[in-house]
């Protein structure tokens, strides 16, 4: 029943890199020259260059959010990163045309195999640019667009410009501004009215070069009544030096549309992963973020939904596993902006060793709205005596026609549970891993099978190491 061809989220499996020759390299450090270089290499229209330069100014002007977030952010040195690296190739439609070293990378990660097994389309990004991008033919015939962001903004400006930067404006936060200045790669997806894409579309993000910072930009639009599921995975080799991944993802679900966005984040422990993700949900539409964070040194990510249309639904399912030296600072935002909108947040975190998991949430129901509901549950499991968890929700409700409910709990695996399982013959590590898997079981069920099997395996590995 298990498919072993899953995306690899075993930390060690992604830990390799190829000495790759790059045609284009923006050099180390960040300045207007770098931004212009990116715009030049991509031959972008003038409006994009202006957008980028404006964003760079906003980025410089904004302080680091250390007044509420961790001081570890101060260890990010923007002048040490390389902001653009590519071989200058167009994304291939066939794996045969992908350069050998890049192709080998993705084969080791199992991407072509998965594409054959269960995906409707794949985009594989290697540092700044996609090396491969393809989608099943019948979807193109139905008018589905699945291309990189650069191709999207050049080839489909009429749709792209309408929504780009509208869900997450440049100045939303310091890192969204940075992404807006130097973005490259990521996906542009448009699903025409009524088209339901049955199999998931997948993007895979790979950092290959040391000191390389990745800034993909994704925009997904599901037109009226359309449905689409998008999955993203990622890995990077374990380098000595820290690096940065800072994406911006914007989703737009028009009337009656459904978008499901699944992330399994498994960056290596030298990556700062600071991502802004938000969806705009129209009337009767549904946006669901399934977000699983296992890797990285520090992740700060709070997927959100702006519930703009009547009866829109937003959901965030979040799993975080923080091991030694990791800080998973994750959560969700639900901004209600229309009557009878509903939102649901379920977040579960596990802290192992000195790992720290943090939940931050925002639920906002302004005045004059009626019939809005939010339900939030956050549960934290602490494995070792030096593990840490924090919960910081912020809930604002105006008006006597809306209701919210928030519950959070912190617990540990009890000695009696472990004893019971060991009396049935399991080792302490197996007992721990079974219990931890049980803790997140109801959420893991919502992942596609290929992901959930791998999730379980990774947790087994972590738990074996946590008991002693």
């Amino acid at each position: 029943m298990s498919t072993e061809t899953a995306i690899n989220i075993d930390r060690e499996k992604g830990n390799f890199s190829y000495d790759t020759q790059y045609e284009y390299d923006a050099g180390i450090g960040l300045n207007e020259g770098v931004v212009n270089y990116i715009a030049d290499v991509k031959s972008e229209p003038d409006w994009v260059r202006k957008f980028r330069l404006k964003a760079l100014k906003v980025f410089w002007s904004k302080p680091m959010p250390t007044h509420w977030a961790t001081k570890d952010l101060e260890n990010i040195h923007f002048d040490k990163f390389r902001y653009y690296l590519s071989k200058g190739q167009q994304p291939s439609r066939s794996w045969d045309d992908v350069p050998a070293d890049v192709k080998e990378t993705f084969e080791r990660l199992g991407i072509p195999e998965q594409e054959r097994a269960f995906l409707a389309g794949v985009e594989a990004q290697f540092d700044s640019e996609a090396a491969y991008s393809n989608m099943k033919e019948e979807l193109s015939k139905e008018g589905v667009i699945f291309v990189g962001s650069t191709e999207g903004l050049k080839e489909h400006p009429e749709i792209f410009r309408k929504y780009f930067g509208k869900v997450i404006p440049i100045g939303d936060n310091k890192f969204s501004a940075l992404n807006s200045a130097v973005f490259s790669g990521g996906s542009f997806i448009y699903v025409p009215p009524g088209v339901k894409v049955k199999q998931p579309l997948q993007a895979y993000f790979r950092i290959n070069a040391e000191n390389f910072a990745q800034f993909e930009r994704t925009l997904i639009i599901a037109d009226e009544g359309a449905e689409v599921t998008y999955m993203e995975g990622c890995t990077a080799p374990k380098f000595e030096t820290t690096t940065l991944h800072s994406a911006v993802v914007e989703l737009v679900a028009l009337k009656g549309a459904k978008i499901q966005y699944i992330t399994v984040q498994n960056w290596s422990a030298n990556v700062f992963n600071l991502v802004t993700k938000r969806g705009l949900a129209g009337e009767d539409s549904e946006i669901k973020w399934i977000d699983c964070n296992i890797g990285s040194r520090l992740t700060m990510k709070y997927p959100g939904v702006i519930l703009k249309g009547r009866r829109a639904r937003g959901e965030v399912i979040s799993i975080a596993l923080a091991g030694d030296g990791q800080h998973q600072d994750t959560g969700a935002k639900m901004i209600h902006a229309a009557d009878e909108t509903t939102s649901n947040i379920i977040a579960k975190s596990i802290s192992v060793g000195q790992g720290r998991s943090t939940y931050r949430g925002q639920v906002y129901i302004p005045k004059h709205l009626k019939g809005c509901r939010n339900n939030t549950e956050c549960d934290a499991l602490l494995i070792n005596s030096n593990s840490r968890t924090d919960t910081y929700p912020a809930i604002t409700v105006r008006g006597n026609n809306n209701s919210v409910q928030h519950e959070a709990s912190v617990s540990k695996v009890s000695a009696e549970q472990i004893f019971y399982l060991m009396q049935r013959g399991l080792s302490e590590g197996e007992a721990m891993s079974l219990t931890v898997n049980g803790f997140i079981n109801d959420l893991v069920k919502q992942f596609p099978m290929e992901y959930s099997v791998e999730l379980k395996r990774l947790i087994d590995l972590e738990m074996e190491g946590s008991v002693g």
Partner: protein
Amino acid sequence: MNALEIKNLHVTIDGQQILKDLSLTLPKGEVHAIMGPNGSGKSTLAKALVGHEDYIVDSGTATMDGKDIFDMEVNERSREGLFLAFQYPAEIPGVTIANFIRAALNARQPKGEDVDAVAYYKDLYSEMERLDIDRKFTSRSVNEGFSGGEKKRCEILQMSMLKPDYCILDETDSGLDIDALKIVADGVNHMRGKDRGILIITHYQRLLNYIVPDRVHIMWDGRIVKSGDKSLAFEVEERGYDWVKQEQTASV
């Protein structure tokens, strides 16, 4: 010797000595019952044998077919064939019964090998049928939200799936109505055989109407004070534990 042999066992919990020089032999192929009033140390014996860390063995030995079990970890004892049906089984949220029993069976396989899934489910369903457990139970979390009777039946289900050499049933009858009691007893009787020793710990004689023991031991103040055949159970039921108490006091 093919038996669970307990000799001169002294056990302390929270600094208080509960078992005081307890000796007992359960040969393979037999069913023994331990009866005794509340606080006589029956559950302490069960917990100490399977190796709960709160139960400190001060002195004495316990061997299973000649192997010292006090040398083994909790899970080693289990894999060697010792099973406890808990009086109060722990709840494990999110872990389904099917996955749990399979994990326990896999723990008994050579490293890297797993039980065959198809055969496993076939076995599981047939045992569940015998114990009158609905198939839907396989996807429920272990003991979570179970009624008292469901918990006990789930313990017997595990026992019949793991096929241990020695089974200890700690107050398995408590909280069961007669129908449930019969089902549990049927399950236990089905497990009887020459390759298995079963130790039933109970406060009441009632269960022994359905599982007829080969030997009955009366426990009092941390040791076995009287042993006999099944008629001893009726005697206790009729005359109460005070009778044993009086006999004990008289003999001192």
